[in-house]
């Protein structure tokens, strides 16, 4: 809920300078000093731990830079980039990441909205149980979460196969069959991260005025009509925020697959970040890994810019 209110403030702030009179030079300078003072500690950390490594990585990407040997001895120009773009393993791992994003994002948006609608209709006195239940998995670290699920997926005695067998159904090779393994990864991710989107939606729902529903009910609108014409449009802001965050989160897939399948079987769940990890740390080729990271970074940047463009257009329309 705080996220959305901050976002609203930011948008309001953006339009205000053009409306306000231009402030005097001295007072503006003093304001800036205070402002910079507040953000300086974070800015320093940001520069040291983010900006500097980003620049260092860019430099690395033009060399045959090795984890264990030479750094800048062997200049390759755009050689690493050309190699990555012609490497079928890069493309297949990128494809795995995109497949995961395309499958997981709609589920994580629609299902969290459905659950939020359901929980919002429940009496406030027992609502906390549901809020807790849906949000609790989100608080687990990826290692704990994958440990739980690797037991559930266990082929011989895991919970899922035991349930299937007791119903007379055959066992499923959850993590060892190509095709199925990626769906299992989506399943655990939905269970794990759904709670965050769910809370954002629930907060949004609770901001919608009851008057709207009462007025529409008087006009004879049923539940579904209310959802379609009042709830969903008024949650537009939440939906866009969730969509932007979710797409970026899904594109960053790594921990779940690395810990559950190591990218297998036959690399069918290896996301592009694991490909970067394998090239850089397992095969010592950090220069190549840096180039691949930059290619992936450009892709994420383009997708994010596209989304922001879409978001700001939506904002202007509404």
């Amino acid at each position: 809920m705080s996220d959305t209110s901050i976002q609203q403030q930011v948008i309001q702030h953006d339009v205000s300078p053009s409306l306000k009179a231009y402030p005097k030079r001295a007072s503006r300078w003093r304001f800036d000093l205070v402002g910079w003072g507040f953000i300086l500690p974070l800015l320093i950390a940001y520069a040291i731990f983010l900006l500097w490594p980003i620049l260092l990585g860019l430099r690395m990407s033009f060399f045959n830079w090795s984890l264990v040997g030479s750094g800048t001895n062997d200049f390759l120009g755009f050689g690493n980039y050309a190699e990555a773009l012609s490497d079928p393993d890069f493309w297949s791992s990128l494809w795995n990441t995109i497949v995961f994003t395309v499958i997981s994002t709609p589920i994580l948006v629609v299902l969290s909205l459905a659950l939020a609608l359901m929980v919002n209709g429940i009496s406030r006195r027992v609502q906390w149980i549901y809020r807790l239940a849906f949000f609790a998995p989100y608080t687990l670290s990826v290692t704990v979460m994958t440990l739980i699920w690797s037991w559930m997926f266990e082929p011989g005695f895991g919970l899922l196969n035991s349930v299937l067998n007791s119903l007379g159904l055959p066992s499923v090779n959850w993590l060892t069959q190509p095709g199925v393994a990626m769906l299992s990864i989506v399943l655990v991710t939905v269970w794990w991260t759904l709670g965050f989107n769910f809370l954002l939606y629930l907060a949004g729902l609770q901001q919608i005025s009851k008057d709207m529903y009462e007025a529409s009910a008087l006009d004879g609108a049923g539940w579904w009509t209310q959802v379609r014409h009042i709830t969903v449009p008024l949650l537009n802001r939440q939906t866009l925020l969730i969509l932007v965050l979710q797409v970026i989160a899904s594109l960053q897939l790594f921990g779940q697959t690395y810990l559950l399948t190591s990218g297998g079987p036959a690399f069918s769940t290896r996301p592009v970040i694991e490909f970067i990890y394998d090239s850089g740390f397992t095969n010592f080729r950090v220069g190549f890994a840096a180039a691949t990271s930059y290619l992936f970074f450009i892709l994420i940047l383009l997708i994010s810019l596209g989304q922001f463009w879409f978001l700001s257009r939506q904002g202007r329309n509404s």
Partner: protein
Amino acid sequence: MHQQPENVFGRRRFLQGAAMLGLAGLAGGTLASCGSPSSSSSITFWNLFGGGDGARMIEMEQAFQQQNPASNFKAVTLAWGAPYYTKLAMSAVGGSPPNAAITHLSRLRTYAAADILEPIDLPFLAQYGVTENDFLPAVWQRAQFNGKLHSIPLDTHPFVMYYNVDVCRKAGLLDSDNNLKPLQGPEALTDAFLRAQKVTGDVGLSLEVQGTTVWRLFNGLYKQLGGDVLSPDGTQFVLNEAHAEQALNFMSNLTLKSKVANPNIDYGGSVALFGSGKAGFHWNGEWEVTTFEGTMNFNMVPFPNVFGGSQTWADSHAFIIPRGATPDQQTKAATYQFITGLLKQSFTWAKGGHIPAYLPVAESAQYKALKPQSNYASDAGVAVLDPAAWFSGAGSQFETAAQNSFEGALTGQMSVPQSLQLFHSSVQRLIDQPVPLPQSVSG
């Protein structure tokens, strides 16, 4: 204090007690460290052993601790495979490596060429009673890089042949002592597998098709015919195509023509198939010996001579000392004492199937009486490791490429020439990558 009535045991008394316990602990710690002024410094040992191997390694560590009560070591077990080698390399590069670690010898050249290993100090090693004479020349040679010893081999673990005694007796394949009659050449082997298949009604031979086994099998067969896969410096693909085709044809015929083996089976499946008596023979590394022990009547022999040689795929576990791991004499002494101490416990290790590299154990009557483990001890001399290259070795990109290429020829998804073509192109792709090492793997 323990006799204090419950009502008197208030908060204050609890705090007093806790403080006293803390003091006692401190005193105890100080006393313990004073008690052994000559105690060796603390060392860390990394290994990748799980399952039975892990249990036997702990047994060896405990025996070493009993013999050397002053020794202070910490053993860390990490998951096998690529992540282990990643951690090992990064710890050495990052300047905080373990004092001793286990590696596969097939990975040794890459690490040595990356300059992250400390060469072994031979005169220093001799002080602990271990010298070149304690190893087979072939094994000693494999532990070298650039003319210097870079590791201390613990074992050789070859690809061998298991057979089900009951099935083979019914198939008429055993001699009067219940030992397998010698089998040699593709026809005799295929015939034996067919006869075993008639007895089991399932398969004659079980072997993993969806995994690294196809590469291990190929490497042994190909070497029996003669030839290399890569040039010694790992920069050229030099496969003898006629020999490779002959070896792969033989493998493909087992699953597709004579159909004595299952064309679609993973590692666990192939082990279970032999373990449940549905196969007369099993081709695999010797490390599954403890899986079958006590559950069935089986025996083991060296991998057969198929094409005129007794070569078979193998790898070795060996101790290494990462660069910077022995900053002072005291740590160095503790590290060498630990490594040689474990080496001398090799008999415990041999129970898991591995051939001890340490000859005083390998030549002992005790080991020779260990059956079926000592049946294939001769393999240590004819073992064929993965070809040396920066991208090869246990759990490497090279093994994955080989496995993905050869699988198809056994499952029937590819012809033998197609499969070799894929092998060539995928290995060539590895060769074409810029080399990330400061020097050649050939030293």
